[in-house]
């Protein structure tokens, strides 16, 4: 295998969708020969056509639907009333806040947990290292539905996890299923493999010479971490946060099953509008709202991290 790229160099060190560059990226502005530039432009076409056709136009369908009258809000003409209805209704406003809150908390919890694991993982050697990485894909492979079934069985107060502790009088019966705690537990568990795999490669890609240089200057492990690992992995941290936040805020199965349906999020509310009352217009408005909030949060994340990322 030629140098420069290695097998398994798979998970990201940079943020493809944020406005900053990757660390250690070879200068990509090397001028290609004239005349090739136009061809290069064309190479974006397949992705853009796919997105335009199968996401863009359907989204326009959704956007148009979101302005339409519906059984709950009968009007004569199109308008923004579905949006004002959703925002003005105190419970829906709460759902909105709760959705963002769940996404943010899950991200904040997962990030350091995953970072620490990603720091430790490279110390594993040989077969154990392979198995460790493969193990992380198990919960993804099993599928969210199966994992949730596992949590539904494990988390009851008198279930296999807490049951014995409750019976021996060590703890009061904890109420977990049907609360935000249960949703957060399953979200963190679902997001951790993504976080670890992403951060693992980021950290591995930091050139070894930098550590050697730091050591030769007399830096201890803590300083090495503060001055080399942390700053150089920041782009990866941002990229991971964006993925985690979007996974968390858009998750459907976790809040639906473990949140106990009384605790709605925007996604489960959308599900309810579509699947139970067939209210396409309100569902569309809620979806557009969610999309807007997600984009705003992404921008916020990028702005938050930008000062931390060294050029």
């Amino acid at each position, binding site marked *: 295998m030629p140098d420069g790229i290695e097998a398994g160099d798979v998970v990201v060190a940079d943020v493809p969708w944020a406005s900053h560059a990757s660390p250690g990226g070879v200068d990509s502005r090397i001028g290609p020969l004239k005349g090739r530039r136009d061809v290069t432009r064309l190479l974006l076409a397949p992705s853009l056509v796919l997105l335009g056709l199968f996401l863009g136009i359907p989204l326009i369908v959704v956007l148009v639907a979101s302005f339409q009258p519906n059984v709950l809000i009968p009007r004569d003409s199109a308008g923004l009333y579905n949006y004002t209805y959703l925002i003005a209704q105190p419970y829906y406003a709460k759902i909105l806040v709760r959705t963002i809150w769940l996404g943010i908390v899950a991200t904040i919890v997962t990030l350091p947990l995953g970072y620490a694991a990603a720091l430790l993982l490279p110390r594993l050697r040989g077969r154990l290292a392979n198995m460790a990485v493969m193990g992380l894909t198990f919960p993804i492979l099993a*599928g969210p539905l199966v994992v949730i079934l596992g949590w539904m069985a494990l988390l009851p107060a008198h279930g296999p996890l807490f049951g014995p502790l409750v019976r021996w009088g060590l703890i009061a019966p904890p109420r977990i299923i049907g609360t935000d705690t249960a949703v957060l537990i399953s979200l963190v568990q679902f997001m951790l493999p993504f976080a670890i795999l992403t951060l693992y490669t980021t950290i591995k890609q930091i050139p070894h010479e930098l550590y050697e240089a730091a050591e030769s200057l007399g830096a201890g492990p803590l300083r090495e971490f503060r001055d080399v690992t942390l700053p150089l992995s920041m782009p990866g941290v941002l990229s991971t946060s964006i*993925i985690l936040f979007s996974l968390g805020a*858009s998750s459907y199965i976790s809040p639906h099953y473990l949140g106990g349906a009384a605790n709605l999020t925007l996604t489960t509310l959308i599900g309810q509008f579509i699947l139970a009352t067939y209210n396409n217009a309100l569902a569309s408005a809620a979806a557009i709202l969610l999309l807007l909030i997600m984009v705003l949060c992404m921008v916020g994340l990028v702005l938050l991290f930008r000062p931390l990322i060294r050029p």
Partner: protein
Amino acid sequence: MKRVATAAGWTYLTAVYVFVIGPVVFVAAESVNSAKAFPSAFAGVTLHWYQAILAHPEFFSAAWTSTLIAAVSSAVATAAAFTAGYALRRRGRQESAVLSTLLASPLLVPQIVISLAMLQFAGLFGLGAGFASLIAVHTIHGLPFALRLVLTGFARFNFSLEDASFSLGAGRVTTWREVTLPLLRPNLIAGFTFCFILSFVNLPISLFLTDAQTTTLPLVMFAYIESRIDPMLAAVATVVVVVAGIATLVLERYLKIRLVE
């Protein structure tokens, strides 16, 4: 002191793995439990639930359908991601910020909404649900992940290699075949694999697009759970994980393909 730190590190890593894999291991353990209900206290070991799957041909045909959809959509997504990633990296950073945000957009729309919107959109053309529509949404769904992995490859790709090839008189096709694609191979494979897995297990994006001829495995499992839950479902999940695990090992051993180094 150092030993304490090391021990703490191992303990932590073990705890993380127990937490992440625990629910899956629990489900797998219940699949050999001879009790009739899921979940149940352990009542004895049986392979009955694995045998029971054989009486449900719909799981097998759905698994095959899911495999096909995952394979085709991942191939299309990875190919599109390759050309897009190439163009983005070749063209410099300013422009790619906007474009790559655009290319990541499928992550930001709730999947259930994509599914319904796609059905309505396809309906405009008299298409409706089915294989083609499923391929379309699964491709869109996989694109950001494939692009992510491809861009990582390009981040460390030395474009002067290409320029050298051009200057030796090679055309673009030859250059790609001989230089670019071989160097990007691991990333393309990883991108494909990642898309494949995410497509294979996805339920919400398929919700409105399956039809009588095309039903995916997650949908069959979900529909089964609607009216019944028993350890057989745990057995189905275990089979999926084990088959995928074996496939990963085979890829790694014989094709030297790794998901992550």
